[in-house]
């Protein structure tokens, strides 16, 4: 949850707060959480909603997503170069739903169906949002190829 929160907001300290608040809300709605088909999906949805609220509250603040990303450029497992800071910045520039889709699909490894359930949308929407997001992120991802 904490890692997901970080990629949703781009700041570790905001991520701390997001997770705390999401868990507090889950606590306050514990009966609903227990009754949910998938309690973890329910809590994940609270976290995503909370990150949107946080973004709306803090939209005038400048977040520096690279503040904690110390190794700017590193080799990944496939020995190709991805610039972390740029990727994080590109991720933050995505619309909220696209960002959430990318994080759930590629960080948490959820299927399209699970992502759709977590975001409260159709699988088709997940596909289209993923596709649009990847087009925007592709230039950052593939810069080491050139």
């Amino acid at each position, binding site marked *: 949850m*904490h890692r997901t929160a970080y990629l949703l907001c781009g700041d570790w300290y905001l991520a701390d*707060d997001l997770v*705390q*608040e999401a868990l507090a809300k889950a*606590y306050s709605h514990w009966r609903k959480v227990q009754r949910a088909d998938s309690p973890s999906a329910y809590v994940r949805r609270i976290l995503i909603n909370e990150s949107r609220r946080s973004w709306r509250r803090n939209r005038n603040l400048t977040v520096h997503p690279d503040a904690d990303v110390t190794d700017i450029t590193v080799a990944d497992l496939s020995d190709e170069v991805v610039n972390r800071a740029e990727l994080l910045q590109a991720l933050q520039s995505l619309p909220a739903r696209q960002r959430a889709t990318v994080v759930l699909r590629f960080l948490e490894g959820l299927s399209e169906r699970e992502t759709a359930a977590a975001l409260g949308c159709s699988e088709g929407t997940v596909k289209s949002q993923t596709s649009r997001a990847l087009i925007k992120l*592709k230039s950052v*991802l593939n810069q080491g190829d050139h």
Partner: protein
Amino acid sequence: MSHETEERLSTALQDIVGDRPYAPDLDQIETRGRKLRNRRVAWRATAGTGFVAAVAAVAVATAGVGTQAPAHNLAVPSSAATGGATDANAPLVQLAGYLTTAAQPQGDATLLLRDQVYTNGLKVDVWDLHADNGDYYFSKTRGGLPAQVKGDHKQADEAGRKNVVAAAKQAADGDLDQARKLMALAYLPANPKVKPTLDPPGAKPAVDDKVLEKLKVLAQNGIHEDVSDLSNWTDNWVWNDSMDALTVGGGSPTVRAGVLRLLGQMPEVKVTKGTLDGQAVLTLAAGSLATGDGTQSLIVNADTGLPIKYVANGVTVNYTATRVTLADVANGQF
């Protein structure tokens, strides 16, 4: 989009987040969760009573008879309330009066140790650093605070935190009626979907039988705790928010004076003099009309109004407040 790109993205995201350790603060989650739940229940009851009041108002208007009820003066205790706030709370009034003239303390922040002891024996100490400008730093250890200040790791800006301090300051020497309103609504959104109904201090809310029936159902489902002893939600908000004001802005005598004035006007808050560990104290005990759930008590120093102990819902919180400067804390000299 190629599978390779997706794999590369997945690897890069895993790489970015790394293995940063994180441990949620379970005590804060529980406290905040309880608060959210209580607030939600309060909203339901308020919405219900508000709806009934609106229906009644429409009924009177359409019938064209009856006299208009005078507007509630929030600062005046209900005449129906038993036990006046005046005589019994005289020490509180006296202390509040003294604090309004007291000099502002040195330093630019208040360091607060919250020593929390739960009925199950669990003991949790946490450190709050509330700057006079509204910034808030938190650490589980005293030694952890310098890094928080140096790194400018402020806790999230919660509008309600500043609102409770502003309300207390207004109560100290301004319009108590308006201050009570500000304190009660400190944590509510600026434009709520349901406009809250505000009651005078100590007034038992008039609730329609149908609403009472709904509340009984909530109680049967374990959502509401005690139907027979329905709370005055305005008093409940003022009591809870005042506790926040004392921790957030308690370093200021003006804030303490305002909180004491607000609490002193609630007939269900009983004040007794006493001593604790050799110091003169005042104990403010609030009944369930204000707490919504049994008796809670706040003990303050009888000379300074500084909070010493708060007892509620299975937890006792002992406070130790000192004045510091942010610069000294950042340098570890405090």
